[in-house]
């Protein structure tokens, strides 16, 4: 069925149908047809609108002058204001042409605002991996080393309020001052603010030294401190040094070494500034909890699968052109509906077929698209071959254009002549179809 057939109102089939139906004189019907359209013209000029029952209405609309361009010369011209005839068909006629008007289908995946939000959330999620475990303050000396892990509850609140690295340096600075003060007092450290009752030296446990240390490292359980804040006492090297280590795992560590000679007795050990600095450091470094939201996969297919009810005038070529913008993909529809469509050249009106998914856009098909279209062309080839179509072999060539693998996979089932084999071998796969 061709949509380009033209019917003249004053002559031909249309007039004959009326005459045959009502057995009227040809002259009367012809005159009536002429007069009807003359009256419509007059009505348009007079009222600007003509309404005809069961057909529609013709309206005039005034268009303002605008600037245009001559397509032949490219010159800018001014199109003067004029009236335009608009035809709006009545509902009955519209429904007669298209019984079910298709409604727009929303594409949720392509919503721009949601995508931006998701991207932001992804950036936030990556932060906890980079932020280290709760920081430890480690003070090493010949006689004493304090390792004071701080609980996460204390640190989270500070992080929420927005801590900065400045606080870390402040803590380090206060630690240095404390160490200098300790160094000035040989073999004895006194801190005024807090006093810790240490167990006897006999309770100290010896541990093997790791690394370059030669002296044993000793742990001391402090009786004055609660279990939530354990402190460790270790023996370190003989030289005074202050180190700040920021390793790849971002664990904050400060090492303070004092005393020139190793000591066997520890009477009072405490560092007031250390306590404050340790808290400051850990409060800053502990991350705030981040809510992780799962991002849904985005479907960016060019065309998503959906059913379609065949209408009069439909053909696979036209359907492919309308839905995929490329008529050459019509075997893709045929392959997806091989059970429904017996003959691709003759579609039955009223049947529902499935318009298959096209992942890539026309001109940049994906691997799956190419495979399916090639399969479709192969199916077309087999159908045409059975029905004795003269151009069946061209479908096979097309199949190889889309995917050589599909043809090679099924080549052993084909019975081709020598010339056809040569032509098929010469056919190349085209990258962009």
């Amino acid at each position, binding site marked *: 069925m061709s949509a380009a057939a033209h*019917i003249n109102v004053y002559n031909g089939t249309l007039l004959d*149908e009326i005459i045959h139906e009502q057995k009227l004189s040809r002259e009367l019907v012809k005159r*009536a047809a002429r007069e009807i359209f003359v009256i419509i013209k007059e009505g*348009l000029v007079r009222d600007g609108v003509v309404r005809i029952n069961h*057909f529609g209405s013709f309206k005039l609309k005034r268009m303002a002058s605008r600037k245009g361009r001559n397509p032949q010369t490219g010159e800018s011209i001014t199109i003067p204001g004029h009236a335009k*005839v608009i035809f709006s068909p009545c509902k009955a006629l519209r429904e007669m042409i298209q019984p079910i008007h298709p409604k727009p289908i929303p594409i949720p995946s392509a919503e721009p605002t949601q995508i931006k939000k998701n991207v932001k959330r992804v950036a936030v999620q990556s932060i906890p991996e980079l932020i280290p475990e709760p920081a430890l303050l480690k003070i090493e000396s010949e006689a004493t080393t304090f390792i004071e892990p701080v609980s996460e509850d204390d640190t989270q609140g500070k992080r929420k309020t927005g801590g900065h690295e400045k606080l870390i340096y402040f803590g380090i600075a206060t630690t240095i001052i404390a160490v200098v003060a300790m160094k000035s007092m040989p073999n004895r450290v006194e801190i005024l603010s807090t006093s810790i009752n240490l167990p006897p030296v006999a309770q100290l446990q010896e541990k093997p030294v790791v690394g370059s240390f030669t002296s044993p490292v000793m742990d001391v359980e402090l009786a004055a401190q609660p279990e939530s804040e354990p402190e460790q006492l270790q023996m370190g090297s003989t030289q005074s040094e202050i180190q700040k280590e920021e390793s790849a795992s971002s664990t904050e560590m400060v090492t303070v070494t004092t005393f020139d000679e190793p000591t066997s007795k520890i009477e009072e050990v405490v560092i007031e500034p250390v306590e404050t600095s340790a808290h400051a450091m850990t409060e800053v470094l502990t991350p705030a909890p981040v809510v992780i939201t799962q991002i849904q996969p985005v479907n960016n297919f060019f065309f998503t699968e959906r059913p379609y009810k065949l209408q009069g*005038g439909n053909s696979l070529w036209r359907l492919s052109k309308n839905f995929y913008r490329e008529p050459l993909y019509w075997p893709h529809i045929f392959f997806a509906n091989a059970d429904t469509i017996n003959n691709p050249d003759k579609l039955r009106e009223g049947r529902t077929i499935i318009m298959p998914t096209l992942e890539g856009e026309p001109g940049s098909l994906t691997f799956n698209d190419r495979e399916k279209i090639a399969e479709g062309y192969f199916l077309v080839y087999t159908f045409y071959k059975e029905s004795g179509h003269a151009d069946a072999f061209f479908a096979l060539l097309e199949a190889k254009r889309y995917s050589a693998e599909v043809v090679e996979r099924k080549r052993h089932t084909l019975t081709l002549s020598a010339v056809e084999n040569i032509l098929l071998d010469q056919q190349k796969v085209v990258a962009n179809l």
Partner: protein
Amino acid sequence: MVTKEIVKLLSERLNISQRQAKDLLELQVKAITSHLQRRHNIITRDFGTVGIKEVPARRAYIPSEKILCEIPAHQKIFFRAANKLKELVKSWRPS
């Protein structure tokens, strides 16, 4: 102008009854719509062409709902005015 006025004018000009004029108008409309249903273009000299065109699928953005939609392919009735009709209504202005 509505159908009733067209019928009245038609009967006056053809010297036929209004009933006959109405029948003739209805027959004409019926014949045109039946051809439109068969996807034919109806050409009327010095008036224009009525036909059906296929609108391909396209994507559209609905600003009120802020969503991107795909409008499926559909068919549409069009009217293309003839040059003489265009000339006739060129200087028309709404009263």
